[in-house]
């Protein structure tokens, strides 16, 4: 009963309009191969959820795949600067930016994890975010009468999480920082793992205490070595500085398309090669 499938097949299962939680954080362990495949398949109207996104959100905005972004921070880090495609999409009204404190994304996912319609957030007390966004509301605590801010649940249809090790049953191990990925795997209706390596059941069993996502939560496993590139994937590879700098200069649709297709072979290697399990 292997869950290992081809990238294009699994990406095809994501419907237009889906709410998509993406693992990793800024330029770390972003599921870029999957994101590129969504772009290739010309997905539309996606709602993307992440505390802090960068190249993943920017690329999806660049190809017009996005309807809304729920995030606390969207930007490359210091040296790479701001995300041009995301900014343009928001500024032209193509994409709706649902601005969160990163923590309220976490709270909204915690609400999904526990299947409640909202989560109270103690820290969100002041400012225009509460008034301008309809996913925040201030109510009266029925126990004390004090005001308390609620954030509405965000239930991802799919969580896509890139990991370093996973067995064919979906038992996944994240090396280094886990960010919000474990929470996402418990909040989403469907969990898709892309992985640097599909390791044997035995290899996972030997380090079972380190399993972050048990297989029974996982629907599909996709093997994509370098699946986070040009973002970083610890400890295997760092950011691809040249590719990122190049991408940030691109403006036209055909340039973006060309950029994505340069990864075709790398992203689909497993389909053409050792696909048997």
């Amino acid at each position, binding site marked *: 009963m292997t869950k290992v499938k081809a990238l294009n097949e699994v990406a095809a299962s994501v419907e237009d309009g889906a709410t998509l939680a993406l693992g990793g954080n800024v330029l770390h362990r972003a599921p870029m191969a999957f994101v590129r495949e969504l772009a290739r398949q010309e997905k539309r109207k996606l709602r993307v959820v992440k505390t802090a996104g960068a190249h993943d959100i920017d690329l999806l905005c660049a190809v017009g795949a996005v309807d809304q972004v729920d995030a606390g*921070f969207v930007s490359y880090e210091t040296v790479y600067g701001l995300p041009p495609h995301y900014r343009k999409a928001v500024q032209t009204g193509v994409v709706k930016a649902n601005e969160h404190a990163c923590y309220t994304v976490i709270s909204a996912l915690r609400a999904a994890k526990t299947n409640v319609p909202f989560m109270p957030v103690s*820290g*969100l007390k002041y400012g225009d975010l509460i008034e301008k966004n309809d996913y925040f509301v201030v109510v009266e605590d029925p126990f004390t009468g004090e005001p308390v801010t609620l954030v509405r649940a965000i239930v991802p249809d799919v969580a896509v999480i890139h990991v370093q090790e996973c067995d064919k049953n979906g038992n996944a191990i994240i090396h280094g920082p886990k960010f919000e990925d474990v929470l996402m795997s418990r909040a989403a209706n469907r969990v898709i793992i892309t992985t640097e390596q599909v390791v044997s059941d035995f290899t996972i069993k030997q380090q079972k205490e380190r399993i972050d996502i048990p297989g029974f939560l996982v629907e599909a496993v996709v093997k994509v070595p370098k699946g986070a590139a040009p973002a970083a994937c610890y400890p295997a590879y760092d950011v691809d500085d040249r590719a990122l700098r190049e991408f940030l200069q691109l403006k036209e649709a055909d340039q973006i398309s060309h950029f994505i297709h340069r990864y075709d072979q790398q992203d689909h290697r497993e389909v053409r090669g050792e696909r048997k399990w």
Partner: protein
Amino acid sequence: MVNQKYRLSDLMTCVIADMLEDGETVFHGVSSQLPMVAMHLARHMHAPHLVHLNIPGGVNPSSIKKAAFSSAGPDLVESSEAYFQLDEVFDLSMRGKLDVAFLGGIQFDMHGNVNASVIGDYHRPKVRLPGGAGSAVLIPTAKKAIIWRTKHDIRTFVKQVDFVTTRGNLWKIVTPLCVFIFRNNRLELDSVHPHTTIEEVQEHTGFPLIYDEVRYTKAPTTKQMQLLRQLDPHDYRSAEF
């Protein structure tokens, strides 16, 4: 002993390090190389029991030399003492147990409001900014929020921000020209950096400066500069300059 050879990034790093006290729990986020180095400096100077928290979740990383492009990377976990995830750092702050949070922002006003969201209309902005990351929940809940900003001009320090991303327990703002302190419900001038003048600061600030007497920011000491070169040999503290 004051060191005469220092850059703006060194000064800002040392000023921030001096603000941190021993034993405090302190958090920095993404794109925060400068405060990250400052926290590390403080731990090696006067605050050995400072608890360094961050986005990837490494408690007290022993080294920040591998940070490279990111202040949210795996290096902070690799050399850490323990793992304490971002969501738990936020929870900690909600409970009033985070002493200091470092946060950014693009626009600040004399009332202590922070804008990290938009320039122009919120729903159809002229400029969409990256967003406040954790600011909107950390500035109200951390005991002391410190903001650093490597730009100081009249578009950054304004009478009234375009949008209030948050406000709250803002304590200090460190810029290339001065340090502001938030007290009496307004942004006051705390100290002017040695290389500038009160006039220059005023010229680059969009609201009238409030101060009793002009104090100058303490310059980095020789000891601090030595340690900085050791702890941050790749000069990440200057990444934003």
